[in-house]
Structure formats: C-alpha cells, structure tokens
C-alpha cells in the first residue's frame, strides 16, 4: 500500500459500527471470550494452586514438577490453541483448554515461587505442632501469601482475557474469531467496534482488579463465572476418541528436508521481528514515558498520555497484527509494527513509573541550577531510571520473542507462519515439529535472560503484558 493511500484506508476504520443490532450480536462473542478466560483460569487455579503448594512444601519429586511447569510455560498460548483446535475442533472448548493448560503452568510456577518466598518462622512454628503438609498450607502458606496470590491471580485473569481474544484468532471462538471474520470480510468499521470493546473490557478489568485487591472476598464472585464458562464450553465427551486419534497423528514429529532448510530463515525472521519490535517500542516509549510521568509532565498531559498507553497496551499484539496485516500486507514488517505498538504501551507505562520512582535529591539538585524540564529529564531522570528501564526492556525483548513466534500464525512471517501453514494443510507431524522448535527457542531465550539478569544482579520484576 502506498503512503498516499494510507489515510483513506485508515478512514475505512471510522466510524465504528455502533448500531444496536450489531452490539446485540456481539453479546455472544463477548460472553464466549469472558467465559473461556474465566473457565480456563478456574482450572488453572484449581490445579496450579495445589501444585504450587506441593512444590513449596518440598514433597518428593517437586523439582521435576517445577521444571515441568516452567517448560510448559514456554509454549505460547496461541501455539497451544492451534494444538487444541486440531485435537478438540474449532470453538470455545479448544480455546478454553489452551488457556487452562498455559495458565496452569503459569499460575503453578508463580504461586510456587511466592510460597517459597514465605517467611520461614511462622511455617516452622506450625510444623512444631505436628501439622501435616496440607495443614501447614491451609494455616500458613495461603494466609501468609494471600495478598500476593490475589494480586497475581487478578493480573493473570486480565492476561487470560487478552489471551482469550488471541486464541479466537485461530478458531478458538469469541471476539478473536469475530475480529478475524470482520477483517476477512473487509468490514473495518466493525473491526474498530471490536477493538474498542476489547479496550473497554480491559479497562473495566483493571478497575475490578483494584477493587478485588482492596476487598479480597470479591474474588469468590469469579467462581460462578468460571464454573459457568466450564459448563458452557466443556469439550464434547464423544469427541475424546477423535481427540486421541488426532493427537496420535502428530507423533512422531517429522520435518521434510526442504522444511529443515527453511528453518534458519524462519528463525531469523522471528528474531528480527522481536528485536525490531522492541527497538520501535523503546523509541516510542521513551518520550511517552516522560510525558506520562506525573512528577515531570503537567497533570493533564500525563493523564492523556496514560490513556493512550492504556489503549496501546489493551490491544494484544495479535490483534494489532491482524489489523496491520490488512493495512500493510502479509510479512514480518506487520509483525514488527504490531509488537512495537503494543510494547510501546507496556514500556511507556513502566518507563513512566521508573521516572516517578527515582530518588528526588539528585533531580532537585539539577532543578536548582535553573535547568529546563527537558534538561532535568536528560541529566537526572533518564540516567537515574536507566537501571529499572533496562530490566523492563530486557523482559520485553524476551516476551516479544515469544510473541513473534505466534504472530506468524496470522500472516506476519517467521516460524509461526510455517506452523500455521502445516496446520492448515493437515501436516500434523510437521506442525508438532514446529511446536517443539518454538518451545526450544523460547526456553533458550528465557534461560539466557535469567542468567543475564543473575549475572548483572538485577532483581526480577513482573513483566507486564
């Protein structure tokens, strides 16, 4: 598409279709998305919480269990969704199961880490009463870490809703499937409506999370929603036989010689998309972060920029990718821009917070020289905040490598594109081989990132999605 045609094309996205009929029709995909997320998270918490406790209480074989969860977490949600769509068929059950598997690994590992960091004194005091492991968990680990569990649980639920949209893009149902349908039908007004609804849902979830952190008992309201999601989108039992035969058709994984020869190029595209997307995000996030810092920018500007960042962040990479593939065309560049836009929202917020958290004394010393706000930013704020900013950026690069592997599935090149093609052509053994390659490069990247952080002495910070 030529640059001159861009404004006209963008104009096709406006105004959004806000007709009552369409909004009514959207109730079902919205419910599907929320139901998949709630059902998947209910399974994830029901399995992940006990697994975390088992690991923390040090029962036999827990090291292996921990590594298993860490390994499972390295398979991206969209990759799992493709797998589940093949095994269980198109529709919300496949999406919900993909989310359940991914978040069980995520919740289990993070909860285990939280429990392992619990103060040892009160736990030993409970053991001295002769309490069993399960009783120490009930009276010790859970109450000691309840606040952190809720914080992370809410954050995971937000991520699960975003992921529920993403898994829809490959046939998992809900808003994602609807969005792919509107873009394929060139119905861009409706695509804008869907994106706006997604941003609205994420904003409401953000508020609900804050409320739950203040009143933890509200978390019990999520249980009926999860149970309803589980019931509505349960996999059909008669399809279990088909699921097993579909899964066995993927084994053993195998790649033809021509496909093996393509792998270096595909991996190169994936890494370049991740690195380019992160670089674009850094360039965009630095000024946006400065403008979002409440101790630096005027309040009204900071507020407005925060809204922009929230919008950029609220739309998942895959959704940006779907829109940009329509806009720019199929290829890694669309993926790069998609990663850049979403990551700019994440990094802009984190950079802004890093600027707000710097020690005030050196900043005031520069201000005392009569320096302008920009000079204060360049000579004090940016150097002082550079440590946490570097940590956030490295985390983002790791995350973007994971995201780049899946963006290919919607036409943005790289290893994901090969995986999607194999699925579409029913080459399931080839598909399984690509899934294993994806898992291997993400595990490698996670391991390298962790070692680098340990070597640099950087504390871990939660990576915002």
């Amino acid at each position, binding site marked *: 598409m030529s640059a001159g045609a861009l404004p006209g094309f963008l104009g096709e996205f406006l105004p959004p279709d806000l007709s009552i009929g369409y909004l009514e029709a959207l109730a079902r995909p919205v419910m599907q998305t929320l139901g998949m997320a709630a059902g998947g998270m209910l399974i994830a918490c029901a399995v992940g919480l006990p697994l975390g406790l088992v690991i923390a209480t040090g029962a036999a074989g827990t090291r292996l269990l921990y590594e298993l969860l860490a390994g499972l977490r390295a398979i991206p949600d969209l990759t799992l969704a493709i797998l589940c769509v093949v095994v269980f068929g198109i529709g919300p059950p496949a999406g919900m199961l993909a989310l359940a598997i991914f978040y069980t690994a995520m919740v289990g590992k993070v909860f285990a880490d939280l429990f392992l960091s619990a103060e040892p004194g009160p736990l030993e005091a409970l*053991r001295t009463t002769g309490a069993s492991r399960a009783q120490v968990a009930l009276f010790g680990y859970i109450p000691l870490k309840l606040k952190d569990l809720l914080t992370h649980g809410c954050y995971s639920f937000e991520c699960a809703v975003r992921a529920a949209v993403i898994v829809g893009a490959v046939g998992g149902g809900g808003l994602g499937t609807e969005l792919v349908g509107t873009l394929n039908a060139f119905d861009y007004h409706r695509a804008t409506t869907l994106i706006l609804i997604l941003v609205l849902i994420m904003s409401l979830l953000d508020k609900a999370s804050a409320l739950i952190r203040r009143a933890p008992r509200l978390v019990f309201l999520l249980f009926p929603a999860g149970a309803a999601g589980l019931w509505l989108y349960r996999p059909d039992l008669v399809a279990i036989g088909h699921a097993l035969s579909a899964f066995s058709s993927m084994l053993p994984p195998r790649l033809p010689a021509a496909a093996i020869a393509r792998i270096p190029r595909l991996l190169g595209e994936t890494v370049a998309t991740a690195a380019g997307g992160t670089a674009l995000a850094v360039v965009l996030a630095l000024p946006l972060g400065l403008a979002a810092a409440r101790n630096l920018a005027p309040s009204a500007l900071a507020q407005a920029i925060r809204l922009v960042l929230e919008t950029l962040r609220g739309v998942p990479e895959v959704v940006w990718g779907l829109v940009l593939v329509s806009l720019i065309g199929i290829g890694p560049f669309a993926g790069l821009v998609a990663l850049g836009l979403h990551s700019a929202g994440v990094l802009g917020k984190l950079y802004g917070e890093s600027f707000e958290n710097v020690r005030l004394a050196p900043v005031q010393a520069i201000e005392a020289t009569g320096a302008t706000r920009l000079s204060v930013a360049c000579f004090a704020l940016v150097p002082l905040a550079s440590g946490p900013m570097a940590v956030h950026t490295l985390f983002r690069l790791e995350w973007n490598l994971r995201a780049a592997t899946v963006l290919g599935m919607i036409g943005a090149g790289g290893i994901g594109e090969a995986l999607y093609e194999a699925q579409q052509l029913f080459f399931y053994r080839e598909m399984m081989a690509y899934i294993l390659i994806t898992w291997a490069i993400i595990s490698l990247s996670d391991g390298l990132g962790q070692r680098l952080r340990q070597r640099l002495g950087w504390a871990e910070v939660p990576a915002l999605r």
Partner: protein
Amino acid sequence: MLRIRDLTVAYASRPTPVIDRLSLQVQPGESVAIVGPSGCGKTTLFRAIGGFVPITGGRIEVDGIEVASARGKRLRALRRRVAVIAQKHDLIERLAVHQNVMAGALGRWSCLRALRFLLLPRRSELLEVRAALERVGIPEELRRKTAELSGGQQQRVAIARALLQNPGLLLADEPVASLDPALSEQILALLCGLASAGGMALLCALHQPELARRYFDRVVDLREAADARPAAASAGGVRLAS
C-alpha cells in the same frame, strides 16, 4: 520426658560446633532455664529437639523416642508432644486470634477438619480456644485480627497456641525478649506455674540469669555446658509457681 546425651551440632560455615557434647535431662513438671549470650546455640538446641536441624553427634530422646531417626508420621506424632514458643512468636498475622490458637490442635486433626474450622468454627472449638486464652489472660481477644494486637498480646497468643497443643514438653525460646519487665515476670510465672501444675516439662531460653534463677527449678549455662552442669544458683533452685 527429654533426654539429651552428648549432643553436638555443627554448621559447615562455622569452624567450631554450635553445640558441643551437651547432656541434659528434663523431667515432667520440671522447669529448666537455658542461659547464655546470643549465638551460644540456644535456638539451635530447640530446633534440634524439634527435628528441624540435623545433629552431628549424640542423641535426643523425647518420651523415649529418638528425634533424629523419626520420619513422617512418627516425627509428626513426636512434634505433637513438643510445643514451641518462638522468640518472635511466629504467628500468622493475617489469621484471627482464634485461628492462630487453634493451630495448636493441627497435629491431632485431619486436614478436612482444619479446613472446616477455618471456614466454620464450631462453638465447642471456640470455647476451647477461649479457655486457652483465659489461661494467658486475654479471653476478650478471641475474634480479633492477630495483626492488631500488641507485641505482648501476640506473645500470649503464641503461649495459648502452645497450651492448646497439650504438650508433654514446652520449649520457650526467649519468650520475654521483647516484653517490658513487669510483663516478662508475669509470663515467666505463668509458664513455670503451668509446668508445675500440669506436669509438663519446660525448657526455656533466657537472656537474663537473674530472672532464670528466680523462676526456674534449674538453670543451665550453655557456655559451660558441654556436660550440662547445673549452675550454682540452681542447686536449690527457687520455684515460684503462680
């Protein structure tokens, strides 16, 4: 009740053993104070008795059962007989007072009963907790959040938890370290009184030798206690049961 013979505990990080050939016996109804400066091994001794620290040499027996060889259910059963009051009371501050006190009963409860108690405590159970709190003088705090209590009150909750465990041996690791003098004396009188009246063996680590001499049947100085000789004042140990 408690028999320790030639106990040695050493850490790889320290050149000399923390505890070197300590021998000690405590009978039911007897109260023994362990004194010595910080770092002389008082807390290590208590953790070794509870089976939380591997011993390098010697033998610890509680009710005739050797601690080092106890595993799984046998270790749990042994711990049920030994209550511990830790220096920092080690309560779960997020739980309410009655929940912390009832944690003392966990050793004789099933997991399901523990869960049911957390969600729906029975009246009889609350009365049992209240009785334990009455013994330490704070029955009115039954339903309060533990985090809202003062340091002294929290220490009493920890003592109530230990009492509810109905132990044969009570290990108190500097139970009055963070309390004012008047409250310290009150707590020590309470513990020694409970030991003598209830036939429970009491082993208590203390910083203050004068308090130890005043309240306990025997005083053992860990610095010179490779053979656990009774300290001079303990020969005719003064006993002040409350």
